[in-house]
């Protein structure tokens, strides 16, 4: 069972590296913000899979929820700050 979760985890890491291309080379700042938000969703699942591998799911569910929250608020604040030329 642990091999199954390890395989899924490595597959998701490969997807994260694909999206990392847009973070580095994205023309403009909005592409980078959208790519970071997409990486955040993959990170949630990778955290849960680590919880399954170490057999302590309850702990990692809490951490995933906190990360989802902060990802949402961070993308909102960054978009608001970088989208306007004058004030917030």
């Amino acid at each position, binding site marked *: 069972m642990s091999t199954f979760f390890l395989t899924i985890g490595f597959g998701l890491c490969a997807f994260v590296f694909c999206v990392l291309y847009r973070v580095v080379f994205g023309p403009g700042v909005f592409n980078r913000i959208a790519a970071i938000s997409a990486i955040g969703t993959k990170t949630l699942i990778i955290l849960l899979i680590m919880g399954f591998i170490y057999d302590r799911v*309850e*702990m990692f569910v*809490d951490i995933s929820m*906190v990360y989802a*929250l902060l990802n949402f*608020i961070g993308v*909102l604040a960054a978009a608001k700050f970088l989208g306007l030329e004058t*004030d*917030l």
Partner: protein
Amino acid sequence: MIRSSEDIIVRTVSRILVPFIQLFALYVIAHGHHSPGGGFQGGVILGASLVLLLITYGPQETRRHISEKSLIAFGSLGVIVYSGIGLICLFLLGNYLDYGKLSGLLRVVPSEARSLGILGVEIGVGFTVMAIMFSIFFDISSGGKPPDDEKNNP
């Protein structure tokens, strides 16, 4: 000066999410001793919920929910709770923050008294961290200018 967001989807979703975020933050504070969490982490999440309210609704609406006076009160209350528990332990002829001496006051076993003492200290830390996080964000993003309302305008 922070303007309220003109997008109705963002406003509605954030107003529904804020109570649940705050409840999750209090859960993280209260279960600090057998789950990842504790005082500082819960305080950061509480501050993040207030920041969400600020960037989607603007400063006037946020001040209806938490005014600047209560923000300063929360910041000081946390410090009072923390040092107050330490001083109570000092008055009961122990060391500073020696929670074991609280067992006489609360009538429980000394190990249980240590657990409750740490919980009280974490609550104090959470209050202070929430207040300071929110006021740092507010002061930096508004550029130091006080928000204009009816009292300040001549």
